[in-house]
């Protein structure tokens, strides 16, 4: 529906390839009483490094779960590349293969090795027989090794995941997502628990991958400063509502409601919520 409205003032083909995620008046809840999200509108361009920031319990994780079909809205419309994200939607199920999702707790399989975890990202590309006998094709193993090098885990291929540090575990989760050859990367507070140096290393890693692979990255952050540093766009969520969305270009920040603002002003607005 959205793309049809938008196509009226521009060329259809251009618009239809530009928007990758659209949400219109999305409401959702875990129980029948409280809404975790209340009327979210979002529109994310392909290739954007998008950040979602907000206080604890504001609905950030919920928003990501809507984007990978793990939750469905009780009201409103969501389109991922013009497909409705739902597990039982055949078209979306296929799309899931290329949506990398890193949950807040990473979701790694702890008793298997680094490389085995990373290879999980290639499971949809395996034949039934290959997958049943755990026989990964040579090219996938080569690819996994390339990604291991990329994320800086060389030499730790055979290490069991439970023996890794917090930063290393995050690298494994990123590598597994990259192994999916993703078009969208969803990452939930992936650097929140890390020290400043490691957090920035991980952010650089994702930003580089995002640029070279023309990924659309949607990352949830606790820290506004970090979001402003790396993202092109930042949405601020509070109590299930989007209260602010800003565009970031270097030091220039554009508030979509009121016009230009300074970083200082944004930080002040945000600190009221934290």
């Amino acid at each position, binding site marked *: 529906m959205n793309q049809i409205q938008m196509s009226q003032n521009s060329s259809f083909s251009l618009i239809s390839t530009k928007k990758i995620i659209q949400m219109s008046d999305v409401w959702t809840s875990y129980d029948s009483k409280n809404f975790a999200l209340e009327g979210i509108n979002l529109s994310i361009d392909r290739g954007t490094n998008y950040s979602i920031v907000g206080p604890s319990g504001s609905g950030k994780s919920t928003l990501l779960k809507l984007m*990978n*079909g*793990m939750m469905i809205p009780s009201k409103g419309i969501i389109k991922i590349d013009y497909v409705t994200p739902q597990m039982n939607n055949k078209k979306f*199920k*296929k*799309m*899931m*293969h290329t*949506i990398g*999702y*890193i*949950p807040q*707790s*990473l*979701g*790694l*399989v*702890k*008793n*298997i090795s680094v490389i085995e975890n990373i290879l*999980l*990202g290639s*499971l*949809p590309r395996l034949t039934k027989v290959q*997958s*049943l006998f*755990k026989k990964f094709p040579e090219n996938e193993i080569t690819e996994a090794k390339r990604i291991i090098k990329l994320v800086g885990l060389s030499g730790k291929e055979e290490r*069991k*995941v*439970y*023996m890794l540090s917090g930063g290393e*575990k995050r690298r494994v*989760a990123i590598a597994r997502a990259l192994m*999916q050859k993703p078009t969208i990367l969803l990452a939930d507070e992936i650097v929140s*628990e890390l020290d400043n140096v490691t957090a920035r290393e991980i952010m650089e890693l994702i930003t580089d991958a995002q640029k070279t692979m023309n990924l659309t990255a949607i990352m949830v952050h606790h820290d506004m400063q970090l979001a402003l540093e790396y993202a092109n766009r930042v949405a601020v969520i509070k109590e299930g509502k989007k209260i602010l969305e800003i565009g970031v270009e270097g030091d220039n920040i554009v508030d979509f409601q009121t016009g230009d603002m300074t970083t200082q002003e944004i930080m002040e607005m945000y600190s009221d919520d934290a």
Partner: protein
Amino acid sequence: MTPKNNILIGIIIALLVVASYNVDANPIDFVEGLPNLVVVLDEMVQVEPKYIPTAIWAMFETIQMAFIGTVVGIAIALPLSMLAARNLNSKFVYAPIRAFLAAIRTFPSILWALLFVIMVGSGAFAGVLAIIMYTIGFIAKLQYEVIETIDSDPMDAVGSIGVSKVQLITYVVIPESASHLLSQMLYMFDYNIRQTSILGLVGAGGIGFYIINYIKFFEYGKAAIFMIVVLVTVLIIDWISVKIRDKYIIKSQHGMEVKTK
């Protein structure tokens, strides 16, 4: 102690007395019967060593029966437990499977043995079938309970890649629960050796067949040899399983406790 608890204990004691009366359980009979035990024990110490090879051979047969029963039982139980786990299936799948497993579990192994003796005739095969049935009912329940307690987190994360259910089971569910499943299998084998030792009572093969026959003919000395062999075997198997558990299972479980967060 609250008055409520006192009433509860009073009720339990009253039930104990009533039930004992009903089943004719008289402590006086027990005391009066003790001298009989002395007679048995006296005869038992007059062991006849020439029966030791037979006893060991019978025990070996018992272990083989338990082994086949355990392996085949587990092979059937594992897929059933995957279908019975609530975190992997819809109600329409797990509810009937659970009911089926519960039905199997209502029979103790000796009853299964009796049933199979009628079906396939007396001998070790009936015993093996009985152990298979018992193992299915018992271990499938233990296993679906383990599967239900595994972390939902990696399941959600890998599930959101859009993998199939079989892939989810092979690549997440089994690795995450492997050490528990393995420890249960060892326990089951251990337990099945004890069980198989008595199946001979109903003619379903194994060392129990000798024991029951010697007891029937008051040849306690011979029975004792066979019972000692069972005891020693069970102790050895117990010791081996503890070693295996320590070496492989405790180590990996230790790892499981390390949270990703």
